[in-house]
């Protein structure tokens, strides 16, 4: 992607100006999107993103700069500017000889997007629209989007790393709006994979349409929930977004290194009941949040975060690992060349447990079954989170009762974690996009159904 001499000169310049570590990251991405709204294909867009980022690390200080111009002189000037803005008395260093690494792609692409016509994608979107509308007269509007992206990345650093990788992503987003008198309700699903066009081909369109429309239709019938503190059963799959936001982010060294995390200094200590094990795994084949290597060039790996209730590991990048004093976990990620890498999640999930859904529901006299979660957010420093329930049901006397809307779950991650008392065996994973300091990255959240003994549910 860049001439070896250019890369060599950038790294050498950075080291000669006293940097402890120098890294060059280049990326060329090809993205294509088709969108259908109101029965019409209304957007077809495609394009190329390209740029080069250079990072200099002096001790704890990181300098990052990027440009879309790959010319040697531009990149050397950019490196020189960074070095000049940091007056260092450090002795000039030298770079190690390049070790060219050839990666084995652990996430095979069986059908490259270029081999499939855009017309075929149009047919697929129209089919999805029709299937969704056919789920009921209450479905008033449908929109769908197919997104594909190929990211070719290149990383070299002053320690001799020289590696290239290619990541092919495919994702479909479907939204249905249903209305039965009391205002429109929207439901959406967005499955995705680190893979090629085969992902679309193998997708169960009937089920996707049914799940999406049924959720919107049920909520169109729903009354508002009465808020209060109550037990909640969180459905499998995207329910894992709560663990992702409320526990996953505070377990990133980006939060831990400043001690701005409730989990800082708690490695080896119990943080949950012994039935809970949580994992962040970047190696799951073709999963949306997987990688061959992270964006610092380290092979992706499986990291056990919590094992039988005991905090085992943080998620770390190069800088975070050094500052917290933990091993790197291959979690250095970035949205694109426009961001310096930071510790980020990959595929994060709570492992299956011993309980059944029936056990959990039967154990509750009055509470909420949050079958599908919407989005949410968290303050990693305090662990305070809030999440919308996309599809919820009242639980009465041990049984699932009427659908309810307008529920929001709020609490503090480290306080709620020990209140997870029952975990089912029905583990599912769901694709999402996670936004943080190094931009938006594809991540998977997941969990089996689980019971939280008490949590504040906002409602009317």
């Amino acid at each position: 992607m860049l001439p070896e001499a250019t890369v060599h000169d950038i790294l050498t310049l950075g080291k000669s100006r006293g940097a402890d570590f120098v890294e060059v990251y280049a990326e060329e991405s090809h993205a294509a999107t088709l969108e259908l709204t109101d029965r019409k294909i209304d957007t077809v867009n495609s394009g190329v993103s390209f740029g080069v980022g250079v990072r200099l690390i002096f001790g704890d200080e990181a300098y990052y700069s990027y440009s879309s111009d790959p010319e040697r002189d531009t990149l050397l000037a950019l490196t020189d500017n960074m070095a000049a803005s940091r007056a260092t008395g450090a002795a000039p260093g030298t770079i190690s000889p390049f070790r060219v690494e050839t990666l084995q792609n652990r996430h095979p692409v069986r059908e490259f997007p270029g081999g499939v016509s855009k017309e075929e994608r149009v047919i697929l979107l129209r089919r999805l629209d029709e299937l969704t509308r056919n789920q009921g007269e209450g479905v008033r509007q449908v929109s769908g989007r197919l997104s594909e992206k190929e990211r070719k990345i290149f990383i070299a650093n002053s320690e001799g790393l020289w590696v290239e990788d290619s990541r092919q992503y495919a994702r479909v987003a479907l939204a249905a709006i249903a209305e039965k008198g009391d205002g429109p309700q929207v439901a959406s699903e967005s499955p995705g994979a680190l893979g090629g066009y085969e992902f679309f081909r193998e997708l169960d369109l009937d089920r996707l349409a049914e799940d999406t429309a049924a959720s919107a239709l049920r909520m169109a019938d729903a009354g508002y929930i009465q808020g209060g503190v109550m037990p909640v059963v969180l459905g499998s799959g995207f329910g894992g977004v709560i663990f992702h936001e409320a526990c996953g982010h505070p377990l990133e060294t980006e939060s831990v290194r400043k001690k701005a995390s409730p989990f800082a200094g708690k490695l080896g200590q119990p943080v949950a009941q012994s039935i809970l094990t949580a994992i962040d795994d970047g190696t799951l084949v073709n999963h949306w949040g997987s990688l061959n290597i992270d964006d610092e060039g380290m092979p992706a790996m499986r990291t056990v975060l919590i094992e039988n209730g005991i905090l085992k590991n943080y998620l770390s990048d190069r800088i975070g690992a050094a500052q917290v004093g933990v091993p790197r976990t291959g979690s250095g990620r970035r949205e694109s060349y426009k961001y310096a890498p930071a510790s980020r999640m990959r595929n994060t999930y709570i492992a299956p447990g011993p309980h059944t859904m029936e056990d959990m529901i039967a154990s509750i006299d009055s509470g909420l079954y949050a079958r599908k979660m919407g989005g949410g957010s968290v303050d990693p420093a305090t662990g305070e989170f809030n999440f919308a329930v996309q599809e919820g049901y009242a639980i009465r006397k041990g049984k699932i009762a009427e659908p309810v809307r307008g529920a929001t779950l709020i609490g503090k991650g480290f306080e709620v974690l020990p209140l997870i008392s029952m975990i089912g065996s029905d583990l599912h994973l769901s694709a999402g996009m996670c936004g943080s300091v190094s931009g938006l990255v594809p991540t998977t959240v997941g969990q089996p159904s689980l019971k939280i003994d008490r949590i504040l549910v906002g409602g009317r």
Partner: protein
Amino acid sequence: MDPLQAIEQALSLAREHRERHVDVVLSRSESLGIRVCEGKVERVEQSTDLGLGLRVVQEGRTGLSFTERLTADTIEKAFLEARANAALLDPTEVVMNETAPGVPDPEVLELYNPALESLTAEDLTRFALEMEAEARRADHRVSTVTHSVARTGRNTYITASTHGVRYTQRSNSVGAGCGVLLESHGNRKSGSYGWSARVWDPAQAALVGREAAQRGGKLLGAKPIPGGKLPIVLDEFTAPALLSMYLGNFHAEAVQKGRSRLKGRLGELIASEDFTLTDDPHRVGAPGSRFLDAEGTPTRALNLIENGALTSFLYHIESARKENRASTGHAGRGYGGGIGTHSHNLVLPTGNHDLEALCALPERCLLVTELEGGSGCNPISGDISIGVQGFLMENGRSVQPVDSVTIAGNFYALLKSIRARGDRYQPHLSSRFIPALLVDGFTISG
């Protein structure tokens, strides 16, 4: 390649391929940001973003493409892709503006201050260090300064078309943000504050650091209040943030596609009678100001709500032609995407009460100073369900910091239940001019 050359090449390709209806947007941004931690520089980020977006309209079919690589080859490839993409679309109502309108020089909008060009990394570093130090000095319970960042940036945005539109607008700004974590007796609370402006003011460093610490400090020890109905006051920061989540309902595109409950309600009273909401594209210094929108349509001030009555939606060319009317000049576009509906600067006039007086109007109320995300807010149904933090107020005085509660209601009900408005807007660069609001009818769960 120089940005203007890139645009000329794209339009020249259009002529060469006999495509009559092509427009181009080009954006170039540069920024410099300094983040400090514990008295020294932690991160320096310097960037140049450049991208060109192309739109080819063939008999109402709109094909899009973009490139961040500005070479002759990549621009030609992007042009050909946009043409090919157009062929896949269903016909739309899009017809490009046939004449290039004359507009005033965008510089009169005062969105660009040349003096900011002289800011250096050292200036920003000093600012960020002072901000961090002041945050620590302001409250001994500050255990961590989670971030202290100062940055400056500038942007040039160019719109051009085969119909002669050529519009260049540049802007710049400087800003900073500080976040702290406070700890006391086992309680933890975050506080943050930001600043953005078009005039460099080093004195802001201490003010921002102190405000971040004070905002968190006042909330330390917060606890829930019992659930029930209570008037709420949204301060001048949370009021625009909450209302902004629902302003998409005024986009004609949303109305036409069944995503707005305002369909068929033009002329109806949808808000209290002293409520007038205006979109003002020519407000001097406001970030959303511009004379031409992304399709080259001249912009003008527009009342969306006038004395409580719904008076207009926001249109771009496609949504306007569906109703056989003219665009209101509300097309927006980044180089990587398609045309969307964008408001410019939304203005709700201020009232007569400062925040303290506003809180004293009801005997008891909840003053909301922090919103916790917006995922429980449904822009389509108008439902509001959101975690908040703030203060329980009695007779205008704070009697308890509050957290772990949610407020629930509906945007459309809110418009009709605004009892009074604050006398000022939040002081930073923003395209939302919405003051603090005293609102009845919300349910609190705690």
